[in-house]
């Protein structure tokens, strides 16, 4: 018995295992499986979901539409949107109230608004997003395909962003994004936290919300003013 002979046998076993692993975890591994799961997922009528990673299972991104708004429970991170809800030209303001339910102290997963969604079904998706998180920080990013570009210098601390007052408490933050001419204003709880040039951002397109990993977030009072 030599190293080479054993290696050959183990290589065969390895190949079998690799093949088995490709379909064994229950989570989707390719597009077809993902689409199948998506079509069978329990999204409210009219909503669509785009997960950040194609090998994540949409069934782990659960959405219910109740009396107090949408309740999103993740799993994997992604954006939730209505394909028919878009702003294609001109100035507008989109706003919503986000409540993180049972937020652990120091939880650093973000949630917030999405504007300018384009090509959301394909590999060249584009959108701009404004998120807050339970440690009192916000971030503005632009997504192009799988890559993101930070408009702010990472997660920026701000007194405008409410933080959890106690372990497993609920935190509500009112977020809004206003496009006025060639400027975009980002506000939290009525206070403007950033104003940036519209150039370079994805401004016009589908509107929606983004919820990152392992969160329970309620979204209500989502509205668009033109």
């Amino acid at each position: 018995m030599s190293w080479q002979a054993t290696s050959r046998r183990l290589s065969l076993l390895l190949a079998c295992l690799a093949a088995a692993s490709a379909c064994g975890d229950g989570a989707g591994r390719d597009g077809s499986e993902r689409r199948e799961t998506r079509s069978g997922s329990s999204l409210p009528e009219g909503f669509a979901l785009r997960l950040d990673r194609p090998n994540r299972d949409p069934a782990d991104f659960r959405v219910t539409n109740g009396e107090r708004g949408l309740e999103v429970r993740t799993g994997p991170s992604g954006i939730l949107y209505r394909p028919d809800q878009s702003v294609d030209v001109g100035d507008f303001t989109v706003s919503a109230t986000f409540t993180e339910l049972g937020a652990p102290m120091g939880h650093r997963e973000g949630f917030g608004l999405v504007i300018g969604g384009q090509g959301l079904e394909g590999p060249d998706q584009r959108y701009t997003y404004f998120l807050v998180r339970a440690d009192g920080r916000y971030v503005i990013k632009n997504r192009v395909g799988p890559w993101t570009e930070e408009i702010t210098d990472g997660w920026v601390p701000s007194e405008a962003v409410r933080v959890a007052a106690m372990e497993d408490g609920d935190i509500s933050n009112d977020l809004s994004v206003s496009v006025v001419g060639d400027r975009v204003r980002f506000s939290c709880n009525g206070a403007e936290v950033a104003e940036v040039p519209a150039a370079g951002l994805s401004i016009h397109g589908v509107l929606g919300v983004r919820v990152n990993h392992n969160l329970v977030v309620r979204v209500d009072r989502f509205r668009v003013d033109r």
Partner: protein
Amino acid sequence: MTDSSLTLDRFARFYAPLAATSLLLTATNPLLTSAMSRSVNPATALAGFGVAFSLCGVLYSPLLVGQQVAATKLLSGRPFGPVQGFWIRVGLLFSLLAMAAAFTPLGEWIFRGGMGVSGDIFDEARLALAFLAPVPLLTAVRAVHQGRLVAGHRTNPIALATGFRTGVLAAVAVALTVLTRGGAWVGGAAFTMGLLVETVMVAATRAGSDGAYHPVAAEGVEMGAQDDRMLRFSTPLMVNVLLWWSTPLLINSVLARTPFPAEAIAAFVVVEAVAWFLTAPVGQFQHVSIALVDRKEAHRSAQRWSVLLAGAVAVALAVVAVPTVRMPVLRAVFDLDPGLLSDIGAALPLAVSYPLLYGHRQYYQGLFIRCGRSDAVGWGAALRVAIVLAVALVALAPLSHAGAVLGVLSAAAGLAVEGLFLERVARRQVMPMLAAAKLGKQELPVGEGVTS
């Protein structure tokens, strides 16, 4: 130990203690990753620890050679004080360097500029590094005292201290996980506390000739030789150790450039922790070829038993990698979301190659050391790192969504090419020596340890 009739019983009696100690050493990473997976922000905690620990490994791995040097100097009749003083100064310098990376703009330059790490991973890594900063100093102190004990033929206290380290590390990790919100710093603090206890134990143990020499599965080195040729001989072996510890740093730097760096590095860190723990039993094969192989017949016998053990370990890893087995196991050990567990599970089958590739490499490295050809070990290590980097960069685009697979594939490719190189060179340079005559005793294994 140079009889060519190497039976399975003799092989097992020689190797079992080494394999057991090796398992004990490598248990630290699954323990730490399991604890950190229970953090409030598990992916960034694991990724931050992976980044910080890979840098810490590069800083402390050169100090492992202190054991060899101390043992050598003591055996040649030199006093212990100057040796200890030198290594403590070097260890202190490296610890200060780690502190500088944790607390000064040097950290920005290394983590952000060099490794490409930013955001929460950067914050987690810096904090973890602050807790890991004493590790180089402690490693230096531990190494020289281990060398003192090795020179005094007292290897049992070394193994005992290693066991205590793992126990303390586990206790601290569990306590901090329960009492705090966790994070990469928990891994750093637990590791440093474990090492502190181990260092105090070996430093407090008096040397004395109370037992026969036996190789120990420590991260450092063993009984030294006799003269100043040591440095020339040891340099390629030190390079080998340093390059081994540089590998996670290189792979993490590539993974930091994927679209989802936290998940990529976190999944890779967990896969490596599991895979190297299960691979640990083959991690000391260099001792087999050094201690038991002196002629071709012994080589065949030793190789046969080594292959058998490596194959058994690979099969065990393969069983764990089977989807129906791995998901319940991973879920039980690591409290991670299904997506991250899926990433880890996808990479695990590739890690089945580790026991064969690593065992092969260790065995042939031992043969080269035995024959006094440490230069081949150094060249093989350099080749491995080059391949790891090349494969990681080439596979970055196609595997950008499967960071753990990318990492394990790079590591396995590097080991495979290094193994081929070592075997080819061995056929030309070592086998004629084995065929011609019995080799003299050579006791210079520089163990790199597959973990901490």
